[in-house]
């Protein structure tokens, strides 16, 4: 705050303070050197102003010690900044183990969000305070970008792949949600609110909201509706139990981890990666499933067990 005027957005997430500290440090460096340069120039301009056209200043060739000094000082500063910034980034990049996963689909020009319990929202995201939330995001059309200034988080939402970000709110309240990647005519209207609530309020809100099936249950329905079981339950295709995050051996001998991107690709482009020991008979579901439905199927597969925890325990 500066004369009652905000200079930074509210610090409403666990990472906000750390980022602000780095920001203040950089601002201090910036102001310090700008002041040094401006004042020096100003001083020189006055002190050594031209007094007559016949002035003949003494010529100075340069100074190696000075050159070294003003190469090394910036070097040290940027190394410090790099180390600080990068370690902060690495620490922030890692979501806590028990993060609640919320799914986000961006499309021109709205945000569709779905809670694991099945509650859907548009351009509004309700979350409980003090709990880590992980967003898994994709886009139906162009690149969007999910940005919550108060949480200091931002990530592009890219068609054709999953990106993710996580946060843990520290303060109840209402915060802006922006699309930060230009996405067409109504880009500036692709905004929303993040509403951070006390956990019990959040539970009340969840139970009071019109609920559809949970993500996984909707996925299970799709699994039935598209009769996936004919193959994937009968040995003609790979089974889904404990599939998520496991290592899958492919026909060509390579191995992939069965993450969201792999699962999505296998639904839309089944022939891209053929699992070893199975024929390439699966048809594509491209055009039949929306991004949201794909996410539901993935949630269903995840609910059938995951090797992620096992791996972490090992």
């Amino acid at each position, binding site marked *: 705050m500066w004369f009652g005027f905000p200079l930074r957005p509210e610090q409403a997430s666990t990472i906000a303070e750390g980022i602000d500290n780095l920001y203040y440090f950089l601002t201090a460096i910036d102001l310090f050197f700008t002041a040094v340069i401006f004042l020096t120039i100003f001083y020189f301009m006055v002190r050594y102003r031209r007094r007559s056209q016949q002035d003949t200043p003494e010529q100075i060739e340069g100074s190696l010690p000075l050159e070294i000094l003003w190469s090394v000082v910036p070097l040290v500063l940027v190394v410090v900044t790099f180390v600080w910034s990068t370690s902060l980034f690495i620490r922030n990049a890692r979501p806590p183990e028990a993060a609640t996963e919320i799914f986000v689909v961006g499309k021109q020009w709205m945000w569709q969000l779905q809670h694991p319990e099945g509650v859907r929202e548009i351009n509004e995201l309700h979350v409980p305070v003090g709990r880590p939330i992980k967003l898994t995001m994709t886009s139906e059309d162009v690149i969007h970008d999910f940005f919550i200034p108060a949480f200091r988080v931002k990530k592009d939402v890219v068609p054709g792949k999953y990106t993710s970000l996580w946060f843990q709110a520290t303060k109840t309240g209402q915060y802006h949600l922006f699309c930060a990647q230009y996405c067409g005519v109504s880009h500036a209207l692709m905004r929303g609110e993040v509403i951070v609530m006390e956990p019990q309020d959040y539970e009340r809100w969840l139970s009071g909201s019109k609920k559809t099936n949970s993500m996984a249950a909707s996925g299970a329905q799709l699994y039935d509706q598209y009769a996936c079981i004919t193959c994937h339950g009968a040995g003609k295709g790979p089974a889904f139990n404990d599939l998520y995050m496991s290592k899958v051996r492919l026909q*060509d001998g390579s191995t992939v981890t069965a993450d969201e991107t792999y699962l999505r690709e296998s639904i839309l*482009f089944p*022939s*891209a990666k*053929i699992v070893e020991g199975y024929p*390439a008979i699966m048809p594509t579901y491209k055009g039949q499933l929306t991004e949201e439905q794909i996410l539901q199927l993935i949630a269903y597969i995840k609910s059938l067990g995951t090797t992620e925890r096992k791996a972490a325990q090992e």
Partner: protein
Amino acid sequence: MSEGHIIALAHQFEDLEQQREAASLGMWLFLATEIMFFGGLFTAYTVYRMMYLPGFDAGSHLLNIKLGALNTIVLLSSSLTMALAVRAAMLGKRRHLVTFLVLTMLLGLAFVGVKLTFEWHHEYVEHLAPGLDFDLNSPHAKGAELFFVFYFTMTGVHALHMIIGVAVMAVLTWQAIQGRFTPERYNPIEMAGLYWHFVDVVWIFLFPLLYLIGAHH
């Protein structure tokens, strides 16, 4: 300096040596630009080949490796005749110069002709032209389609360079017939030579990347 030198010398230069060095440096810089131009395509190609390895192999397998090899030899021969044309220009042998230039053009046209009639046309008929008519019954159709996007873009841009080269050479041949080149002034021939060899070098990389990667299936 004799009269003839001064006529060949542009006003901004001090002497012919300077003029020739400037032209040569300019040409090499232009080729550096061309390397980066094709380089962008090669980069994109590499990225997608990594993503769609089986698709690229499948796509490559559909190309006619014999025609590719034949065209490689045709183009290499044209490089030889071009090198000999430059040599003839250096020695002031006008008849040889004209002959080799014409040969180079003919070989260049043969290359483009083979490409157009036996390859592109064939691939179009076989429904292998992405964006116009692509229909491939293969589990790797998506990767193969991307392969063909790059195949047509790369060979298309390359062929465009060849056509420009042939056009330039047609002008040079005309000038050579008129006796505009002497052992003191054969710069344009040499520059055209550098360009032509460069186009050859690009093909030397296109041939394995497009035709050979899928040949062993």
